């Protein structure tokens, strides 16, 4: 019989860290699969390399830290980070972009802070922003949609991913990029969006990052996660609501210079960020109200950067900025304790 004193509970819920990670990865797979489907073999190679690199860096860091790597490698967090990094990359980016991205995410974004659960910034977004600033050409070369069997073959694809020089594929700009460039040339909406098809944008048949184009599939994955109880509604809803309200107002005031709600919601990384990045447990607030504030802040920053900033897409910066504010939000927004006011004073008997 057990002599060591143990506190209750003597039974436990069945959900474990690895279950959560597995479910998130599962929810991402449709969008990743879609990315591979419409951008061909190079997208598959890039995804595989990025995820593998993430695992290798995780193992190396754990080794250096002197802990047993196996349980941590199996918890799925490194795979998830790698996958998220891959999804934010241009689909035909060279292999080393994926490796550098994983290195930044795992080593600088996660392990230097002390590993799982300790990081201040979302590793995948840190990697994306660092890559974007360091390698602007590679990070903004967007290929046309080239479905798996209609694009380059396997060998050509290997060459695309592993060749040293930037490939010369037919490339164009993303919707947000095109609009930003257009504005700088004094062009106005809606003329800038002459070839924009809102339905294709929704299902994801457009230029863009590997796993971010299909709002539909990401939305489906995100809603499934919410149903499974892995994420809660507070962050996605407040994020999407704030950007919806802002774009409605500004588009109504000046439709020539502000994108419509639909374009905002279906462009860039917005859906991915709303359901999978902003909801990252480690880097978002703990309380429901704090999460609403966090989500709304993300939405606001995304809108500000997209509308008035230098970059066409602002999700990465917005997330990092709000990540930095998270400890502050958690400090000031705390749940009300039973029998006390929000300020911690006991309730007045006459008022309770």
């Amino acid at each position: 019989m057990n002599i060591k004193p143990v506190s209750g509970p003597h039974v436990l819920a069945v959900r474990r860290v690895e279950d959560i990670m597995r479910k998130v990865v599962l929810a991402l797979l449709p969008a990743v699969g879609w990315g591979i489907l419409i951008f061909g073999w190079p997208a598959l190679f890039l995804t595989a390399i990025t995820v593998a690199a993430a695992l290798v860096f995780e193992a190396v860091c754990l080794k250096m830290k002197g802990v047993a790597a196996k349980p941590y490698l199996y918890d799925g967090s490194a795979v998830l980070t790698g996958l998220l990094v891959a999804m934010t990359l241009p689909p035909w980016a060279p292999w080393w972009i994926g490796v550098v991205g994983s290195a930044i995410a795992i080593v600088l974004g996660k392990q230097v802070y002390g590993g799982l659960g300790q990081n201040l910034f979302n590793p995948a977004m840190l990697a994306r922003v660092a890559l974007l600033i360091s390698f602007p050409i590679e990070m903004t070369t967007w290929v046309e949609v080239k479905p798996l069997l209609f694009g380059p073959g396997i060998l050509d694809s290997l060459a695309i991913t592993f060749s040293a020089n930037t490939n010369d594929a037919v490339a164009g700009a993303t919707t947000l990029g095109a609009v930003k460039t257009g504005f700088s040339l004094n062009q106005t909406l809606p003329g800038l969006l002459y070839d924009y098809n809102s339905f294709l944008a929704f299902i994801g048949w457009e230029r863009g990052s590997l796993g971010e184009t299909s709002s539909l599939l990401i939305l489906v994955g995100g809603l499934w996660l919410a149903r499974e109880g892995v994420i809660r509604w507070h962050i996605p809803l407040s994020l999407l609501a704030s950007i919806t309200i802002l774009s409605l107002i500004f588009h109504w005031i000046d439709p020539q210079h502000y994108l419509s709600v639909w374009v905002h919601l279906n462009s860039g990384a917005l859906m991915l960020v709303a359901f999978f990045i902003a909801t990252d447990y480690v880097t978002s607030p703990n309380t429901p109200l704090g999460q609403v504030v966090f989500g709304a802040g993300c939405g606001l920053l995304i809108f500000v950067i997209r509308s008035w900033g230098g970059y066409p897409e602002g999700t990465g910066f917005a997330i990092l900025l709000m990540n930095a504010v998270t400890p502050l939000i958690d400090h000031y927004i705390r749940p009300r304790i039973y029998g006390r006011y929000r300020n911690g004073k006991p309730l007045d008997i006459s008022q309770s």
Partner: protein
Amino acid sequence: MLALFENPRLRGGIHAEEHKNETSAKPIATSLPLPKKLYVPVQQHVGKPAEPVVKVGDKVLKGQLLAHSQGNISAPVHAPSSGSILDVLDYPAPHPSALPIRTIVIGTDGQDQWINTDIPSDPFLLEPEEICSRVGAAGVVGLGGAVFPSAVKLGLGRKNQIHTLLINAGECEPYLTCDDRLMQERADEIVAGIRLMLRGMNAPQATIGIEDNKPEAYQAMYQASEAFANINVVQVPTRYPMGWDRQMLRYLTGWEIPADGRATDIGVVIHNVATAHAVYRAVCLGQPLISRVVTVSGGAIGKPQNVEVLIGTLMTHVLKFCKVDKDKVARLIMGGPMMGDALPIAEVPVVKACNGILALTADDIELPEVKPCIRCSSCVTACPVGLLPLEMASRIKANQLEAAVDLGLKDCINCASCSYVCPSNIPLVHYFKFASGELYKRQQMEHRSEQTKRLMDDRNQRMERIRLEAEAEAKRVAEARAARAREQAQAKPVVTEESA
């Protein structure tokens, strides 16, 4: 997503696997053989331990007073069966430490002969004070697990003019069904107990809250109380910890008890349903609290059921009766699996607080590896109090106990919902209990050092006073001597003058 539509009166909580079906359909077993020896601890309640009034060798009858209550908050204990006092000794308590406490050992004579009981002709005509004193004399304590002397609570209720008596029949802990069975089988007696409590407190009405996973108990209680307009039976959602009295009160009324107050401050008294039954027995039958219904369950129990057990019966005896498979027992628990205590040995007596004995197998209790916190805030969502368990635990880990107190450590009710949901299996409650114990220890140390300082100061003052007194005495002596010398000196010249 459903959180959108959450009832604001129902914060946090969890729903664990219930495991109630194993025992909830079987009648309470009353055929437990009388054990040869009964070990009755003198402290089975909150407050001062009772003082034994019997000596070794005394013959006692069933229901006879063994130890009387001491001070305002205390409760007496009675002989659970007839026989003779074999010993009054220190015996292991049903506590995780199994440290010995003062225990009266009775060798039963097998007669099980009752003492003359005082049965009032109409208990419902007794004066409120009389009801309270009878409840107090019968050693009735809160049987939900808190074991607070019931008479004290009734007295508080009478003094504070309460408007509602809340009967807690939540029984939210998994496995436990003793209250469920009690309600199904003895609903009329419980309702009689509730009426006596109402009278004892001059309270107008009572509400009984029953979790909605006990429809039979609800039906039985509903029928039993139908004749009494001032007793309502209400179903409450099945969500642990609904049996936390303050959670049930908030759910049923929307009121919260102030953090520094008692339920009586807002005109409510909360009693457990089994306590109401004990009150019935004490007042209507004149029987003190000498037995209780105990749920015996868990994977290692061959015959899981509810058993009416005499206080002082060793758990080994009860376990044997329920066909325990000793080799399969991985953990023995007194109480429920959420808040119950793991016992190191089974040779401990059943006490008034013991509502369940669970013999869990290795399959029932998982011992997964503890992983780092991923800040998923499941614990924040699960906390019924509104605390931040993850933050508190990280402060305690860094030995910043004061910071943990600032976060609300002292408001924690140790319900273990946070540990239950934690995907990293962090033993959060263990941290909180450790911190509370540590703070208590520090407080004691501070207290002690203050006391030492006071004694030191007293001594210094005393020494100073003695010194001053000695000085004054010396001065007085010196003055007296000087005066005498002067007198002599004065006298001398006179003499000389005279002589001259």
